[in-house]
């Protein structure tokens, strides 16, 4: 059996050295910060791109008298929430409960009572 005999030129590396946990945490936080910084840059670029469409959107809204965003087209109170009849129970016929999925995303628009003959 041969034994290891170090020569004057042998480099001994101590592999028992362990990384301090704090450094791993700092590395992890640094990585997440870098990802978030990239997303922040993307957010600003995308915002600038949308601002470019803003003027055209204003022309469309003013030229066509649009009052609502086109998000959900399944029910009139989700397609045109600001100018359609407010959502009330049994609004379509007796016993008709609200059943459209998108209806659960919108807060029921309160009855538009600001300017009616009563007030």
């Amino acid at each position, binding site marked *: 059996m041969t034994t290891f005999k170090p020569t004057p030129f042998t480099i001994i590396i101590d592999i028992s050295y362990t990384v*301090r*946990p*704090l450094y*791993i*945490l700092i590395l*992890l*936080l640094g990585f*997440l910060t870098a*990802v*978030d910084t990239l*997303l922040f840059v*993307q*957010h600003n670029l*995308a*915002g600038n791109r*949308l601002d470019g469409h*803003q003027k*055209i*959107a*204003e*022309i*469309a*809204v*003013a*030229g*066509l*008298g*649009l*009052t*609502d*965003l*086109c*998000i*959900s*087209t*399944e*029910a*009139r109170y*989700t*397609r*045109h*929430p*600001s*100018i*359609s*009849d407010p959502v009330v129970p049994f609004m379509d016929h007796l016993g008709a409960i609200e059943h*459209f*999925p*998108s*209806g*659960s*995303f*919108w*807060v029921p*628009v309160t009855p*538009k009572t*600001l*300017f*009616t*003959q009563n007030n």
Partner: protein
Amino acid sequence: MRQFIEKNFNILDYALTSLWRRKFKNISVMVVFALVIFLLASFQMVTSALTKTAANSLTQAPDITVQKMSAGRQEAIPLAYLEKLKGIFGIRTVVPRIWGYYFDEKNLANYTVLGLETWEMPTGNELNLTLAEGRFPQKNETGLVVLGHAVHQALDLGDRKVLSFFRPDLELQSFKVAGIFSQNLEILTADLIVMNLEDARQIFTIPGDHVTDLCVYVGNPVEINTIGKKIAALLPGTRVLTRPQILKTYQMIFSWRSGFASVCLLSALAAFAILAWGKASGLAPEERREIAILKILGWETADVLVIRFWESFVVSLLAFILGCTLAYIHVVFFEATLFSPVLLGWSIIHPKLQLIPDIKFADLLLIFCYSVLPYMAATVIPAWRCAIVRADSAMHN
């Protein structure tokens, strides 16, 4: 000072090692925690993006919209009201409009048909800028329509320029496609079919002396509310909607009070309640023994609490950053895929949602406060209860 920092770094090292010793438990807690924050942050970002889009785009909506009501529902308004409105000082112009929904039985899609004299509208002569191709019908041109991009795709027209609609009397009415709206405007025009007022009248068979509603434009925007009240007084049985009301509607419409938001909020609260209950009901015997050994070795109660603080702070901070980052990626790059089935519902027309959330520090702070702080409190309090018990009795138990 240096000693204080070094001591806290050492404690943090110990806390991290302690977390890693129970890695499966802590990672699973962090993942569940991050999912809860992801859900809340996603909802917050979707609603803020939609609210911002509405606030930016709808600033040019009609000053006042007048609709006739009957039995609690909107019905066609007589054109005779137009003459009455001319008597109100301050009104610049009134534009009659016919609009409604056309159900396409082939595609099962609902289109919004809009008929108006575009040249009478404020930016009517610039509307060609909103088109990807073609032009808007000119005055006295009938039988021409401008389609939303999604409508053009749903009808699968391709290069064909002619399409037909069924009138209520089942007669077919043909139109020629004059233009298609730009894809960048899908959030406003996806399901629109714009045509001449008279063409819309024929499609819906609305009598010649009636329209759907009236768009009123006033000379001085400050007087919108005053003129709105005058119109309501002059025309009983009408619903008068002002632009500030429309903008206010969109500020409130995507709120925590909606059903879906309540479900998100309640599930998050339930998850926190379960987590807090588990933590507050006491530490595991192994953790008790660890605290007892530390105290026997000379650690003070304050040091034990600092370890527990760092442990819960690291878990909750990582979960918060991870949850918020994933929420942003979900909303912006995947168009809020998880919420789309609820947001769009059974709609056949799916506008392309270019959502860019309006991220405010206050919103992030709100999510941080009702997710991270309760978790830290729920972790530190039981540790304090255990740390004040005598070490020998803790070991004995």
